[in-house]
């Protein structure tokens, strides 16, 4: 049976992950143990650096934060923003921003009632499933991401 690291490395080199790279949706930036950094390329030309905590890969959901590209610290400015639909999934406010989704580690911490579903175990490639969710957040207009308007 593959170790968690072996499984993570296999998912990072999977055709599904590579497809996202080839199509310009995301790029692998770095890995520090079980922490993976992936740059998400939004349709308005902006880039967001996702810090994906893949500790206990498979048994626990991935925890995602958007971080500053230089300092790799989580700042509000590093996060994409959007409308009232978007904030269903990306929470700001008084607390630290987090992704409120039943396949995100911090989302599940906020909603323990989601844990029994184990939604993050439903698809084999957890990493790409997460990145696909982030891609849709940025690309599907009805999901409400605030796109940078091109200069007139």
């Amino acid at each position, binding site marked *: 049976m593959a170790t968690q690291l072996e499984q993570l490395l296999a998912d990072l080199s999977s055709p599904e992950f590579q497809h996202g790279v080839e*199509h310009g949706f995301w790029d692998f930036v770095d890995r520090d143990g079980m922490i993976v950094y992936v740059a998400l390329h939004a349709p308005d030309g902006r880039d967001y650096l996702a810090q994906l905590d893949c500790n206990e890969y498979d048994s626990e959901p991935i925890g995602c934060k958007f971080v500053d590209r230089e300092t790799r610290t989580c700042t509000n400015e590093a996060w994409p923003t959007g409308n009232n639909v978007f904030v269903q999934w990306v929470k700001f406010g008084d607390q630290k921003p987090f992704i*409120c989704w039943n396949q995100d580690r911090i989302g599940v911490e906020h909603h323990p009632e989601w844990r029994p579903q184990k939604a993050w175990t439903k698809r084999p490639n957890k990493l790409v499933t997460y990145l696909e*969710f982030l891609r849709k957040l940025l690309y*599907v207009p009805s999901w409400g991401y605030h796109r940078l308007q091109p200069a007139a």
Partner: protein
Amino acid sequence: MLVIVELEQDGGVVKTAECEIEEGATVAKVAQLVGPKLEIAAEEIVMDLVVDGSSFEAHHRVEDCMHHGNRWRHRRACVAIHFESEEARHHFPASADWAIVHHWACKHFRVAKDICANLELHEGSPDGPAINESKKIGHFPGCMTVWLGKPGPEPFGYSA
């Protein structure tokens, strides 16, 4: 100056059109003249005009392009688009973005504008990988199958 434009699709040249063009004219003018003969809109022709790896833009002057030769090529790629239970095949300029396929499909299948904006192109099957519509269509053998569809069920977010 004589310019010959070859239409390449399905792996070979299927049609040729030529035109006489005056000095100072742009590539756009060539496209306007050969468009009716090739039965392709001029604005689509200028999306892909190449000679030996060099590509021309609509605003380029014809004489500046002529040192590559006067036999130019417009390449089109076949895409089989599925939408719900319908299917249509169409050739698109190989250097155009995938967005042109999305727009064409919405028009062809008569999809309302607001619904169209939230559909995505997927490669091979409805659950296939998403296509980035800002990327070029490119060349491939045969006809590529894509599906125009909703981007999957909305995931569970908490709206309090």
